[in-house]
């Protein structure tokens, strides 16, 4: 690919993804810079280049030059911006991939309501098409192509973890069960880093009398295609899950405690595949909340530790599941306290949107996590933080380790619910 070609390929994709929605964002931005004040990368560094709207500049430039209404009149007066070059794209690469987690907090402060996060996702399509992407994400793509998982987790590794959890819980976990009601998908990070979540599912679903399974063909929820900005790859990953779920005849697919995986399959999925699914997608937090409200998983003794909740951006702010985790926590935790600006205004952990898979961004990610650490430190006597996203959880663990904070446990919501279930004797008594 020659230099001109790369720039042209990227620009063509930028223009392809600039529909009426994106164009209205570009037309409405008044360069007020308020979005900087909502961005954890700017807050942590005070470097103006991390201003969210600035990250979009090459795409805006391409739009103004080639697609904006009245651009031909501007051209007559020599008022068009110059063409986007490969050098420029490379200069912006770190802004597009390393310093945006697509958390969407900037949309909340924007007087024009511009969805910068969603537009960065589309801008990455141009970068991926031109092959101007970070090496770390490229490696994840290679793993996905070889094994289906960005961390190279094979079905054998999954089955080994399932067996281990069967031993731990004493509950049989049926893999590839035809006609089950629910099919759970997991993130690689959960399978390898936090496999106890599989045991937690087993305990909860047994208690609730839920028929569920895991597919040995499509167990991976992480969608690296969404992170890197490759529509075809994102579609392939979603299609794998859709095919397996429809083959098993399940009624629901459970999206796991993983932020962007939920958006990828629940909201973007049917649009990528081009048809509605024959099953419903439900987030594990939604399902647990529903089961609890139906009285199928009554809460037992509460965890007495002082706890707070981290709101994963793609599940809460961009996913809409605001009340569900709080209702679950209220019944599982005796001393629950909210962080400052909790809920829709939460601060991102700093590692979403593929940033944590990009070693080049490690230092910046850690700096951005500093904003989150400040929020945690502001709560006196905090003993644990519930983080219902495996990726955020890893970022938390690394960030706390970096700051030598060892007295704060990081745990998933599913595990907490499983640990605080009313046991059968209690329930019957």
């Amino acid at each position, binding site marked *: 690919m020659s230099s001109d070609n790369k720039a042209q390929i990227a620009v063509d994709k930028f223009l392809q993804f600039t529909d009426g929605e994106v164009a209205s964002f570009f037309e*409405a*931005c008044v360069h007020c810079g308020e979005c900087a004040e909502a961005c954890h990368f700017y807050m942590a560094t005070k470097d*103006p280049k991390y*201003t969210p709207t600035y990250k979009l500049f090459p795409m805006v430039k391409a739009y103004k030059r080639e697609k904006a*209404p009245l651009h031909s009149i501007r051209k007559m007066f020599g008022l068009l911006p110059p063409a986007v070059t490969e050098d420029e794209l490379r200069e912006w690469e770190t802004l597009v991939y390393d310093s945006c987690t697509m958390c969407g907090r900037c949309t909340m402060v924007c007087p*024009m309501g511009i969805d910068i996060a969603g537009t960065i996702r589309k801008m990455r399509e141009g970068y991926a098409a031109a092959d101007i992407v970070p090496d770390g994400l490229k490696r994840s793509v290679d793993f996905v192509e070889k094994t289906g998982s960005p961390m190279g987790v094979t079905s054998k590794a999954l089955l080994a973890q399932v067996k281990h959890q069967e031993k731990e819980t004493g509950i049989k976990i049926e893999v590839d069960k035809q006609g089950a009601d629910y099919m759970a998908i997991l993130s690689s990070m959960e399978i390898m880093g936090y496999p106890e979540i599989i045991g937690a599912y087993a305990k909860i679903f047994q208690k609730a009398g839920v028929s569920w399974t895991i597919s040995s063909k499509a167990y991976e929820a992480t969608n690296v295609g969404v992170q890197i900005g490759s529509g075809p790859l994102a579609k392939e990953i979603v299609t794998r899950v859709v095919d397996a779920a429809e083959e098993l005849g399940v009624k629901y697919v459970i999206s796991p405690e993983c932020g962007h995986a939920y958006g990828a399959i629940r909201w973007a999925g*049917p649009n990528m595949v081009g048809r*509605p699914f024959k099953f419903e997608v439900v987030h594990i937090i939604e399902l647990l909340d529903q089961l609890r409200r139906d009285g199928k998983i009554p809460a037992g003794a509460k965890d007495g530790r002082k706890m707070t909740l981290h709101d994963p951006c793609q599940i809460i702010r961009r996913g809409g599941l605001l009340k569900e985790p709080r209702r679950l926590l209220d019944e599982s935790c005796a001393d629950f306290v909210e962080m400052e600006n909790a809920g829709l205004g939460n601060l991102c952990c700093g590692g979403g949107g593929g940033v944590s898979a990009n070693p080049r961004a490690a230092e910046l990610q850690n700096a951005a996590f500093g904003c989150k650490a400040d929020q945690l430190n502001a709560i006196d006597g905090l003993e644990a933080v519930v983080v219902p996203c495996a990726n955020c959880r890893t970022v938390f663990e690394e960030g706390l380790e970096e700051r030598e904070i060892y007295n704060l446990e990081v745990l998933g919501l599913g595990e907490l619910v499983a640990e605080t279930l009313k046991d059968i004797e209690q329930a019957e008594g």
Partner: protein
Amino acid sequence: MGFVGFVEGPLFYIAAAIFALAAAWRVFGLIRMGRKPDISPPKGSATAGFIKGNLRHFLPRGMFARRTWIHIVGGYAFHLGLFVLFFFGAFHIDFIKQYLGISWTPLPRWGFILASEIAFAGLIVLWVRRFSDPVMRLISDRDDHIGTWLTFLVMLTGCLALQQSHEVLRGIHMLFVDIWLIYFPFSRLMHAFTFVLSRGHTGATYGRKGMNP
């Protein structure tokens, strides 16, 4: 035809026509670009989200107020002041009546002056911030500055013409109004119309998700 006659007559007609046609062309161009239908099962209404998104972003959020208060104060002062002085200034209402035949009750003179002062103060705050704040300096371009200066000059010459003591001062005001009208649809001043689409699209997306942040 004298200078005043020209800027209030033929030039104004041309400027107003360019403004109306080019602004409409730009807005319809955006609408015509369209958006693929979303086939994911909705949890809420996109239409309600479109409306909510538009209303919600009129109000600043408390959590960001400490970090963005200068903009909030400057932005509200300028836009509200401009709205009031434009639509409720006696001279503007007379002008509109002359062309469109409709009129309404104007503000008393003191109210008009107060609204103008507030609008000036807001515009100056926003302009000073544009060249003094590192973030705004980085992201601002020629269009931002031209738009600010033209608006400032329209307001300033409007103040000079307020006494109606010299016809030529009113002519200078109208000249800047004409230039402003011609520049408007080709510039970022168009945000006065495009904000509805921008807020609405985001609101609709979130509305389908059953929420509106």
